[in-house]
């Protein structure tokens, strides 16, 4: 009788531990997904600013915003994903390719030339941003298959 009661309690506790553990995983998944969604929106914002800059609006203010976003702000967001256990090691190379696409040519220069949406510079910005964006999604999919 006593043994049966003990077994029942053990089963209840064990069951609770499993449910609690699964809840924690779900909550953590939601948190990471939320952070990742914010990151994707931020990348969209940078992409829009970059196209604006290169196609019609090469102001010092926009150049400053782009440098700020493509350096510290983006890195800080990446660090948060890292803290939340997402593997972002391979993203650093893609981050610099994106920064390079936006700021290596026709940027902070006295010889600025307005680009059209079909120019290689713009296409390269779109491609490198997509690569970075996709890399985050892959990391997420690996972490939560």
């Amino acid at each position, binding site marked *: 009788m006593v043994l049966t009661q003990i077994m029942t309690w053990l089963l209840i506790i064990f069951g609770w531990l499993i449910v609690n553990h699964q809840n924690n995983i779900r909550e953590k998944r939601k948190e990471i997904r939320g952070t990742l969604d914010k990151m994707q929106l931020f990348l969209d914002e940078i992409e829009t600013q970059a196209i604006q800059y290169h196609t019609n609006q090469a102001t010092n203010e926009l150049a400053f915003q782009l440098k700020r976003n493509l*350096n510290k702000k983006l890195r800080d967001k990446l660090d948060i994903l890292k803290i939340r256990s997402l593997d972002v090691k391979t993203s650093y190379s893609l981050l610099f390719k994106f920064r390079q696409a936006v700021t290596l040519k026709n940027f902070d220069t006295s010889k600025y030339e307005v680009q059209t949406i079909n120019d290689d510079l713009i296409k390269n910005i779109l491609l490198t941003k997509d690569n970075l964006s996709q890399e985050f999604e892959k990391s997420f999919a690996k972490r939560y298959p």
Partner: protein
Amino acid sequence: MNASTINVTTTNIDIGKDFSHYPAGRYETDGPFNGELFRAEFLVPVLNSHQQITIELDNTAGYGSSFLEEAFGGLVRLGYSSAQIKTAITFHSEDPSLIEEIEEYILDAEQD
């Protein structure tokens, strides 16, 4: 004097504090704190005097790649080898992508 007795001094350059919080552009025509100026005032003297330096990259408002390419890739175009640059300069940043980017510019300039 053999190589082991050459005086090698180590200094630190903090781009944000020693040069500008807002580095921008390649050439003088692009702005007052451009990559060409940083290279001439800070990097070339170090390489010519066999010093070793650590460059702190983190205290600026951010870099455009054009500044980084001109400052560091430009050293190779002036005749310094990537090995010389690597021996003389160590980079510090919380952002590994920044260091990777600079190293790529140095190697690319050597291959061009």
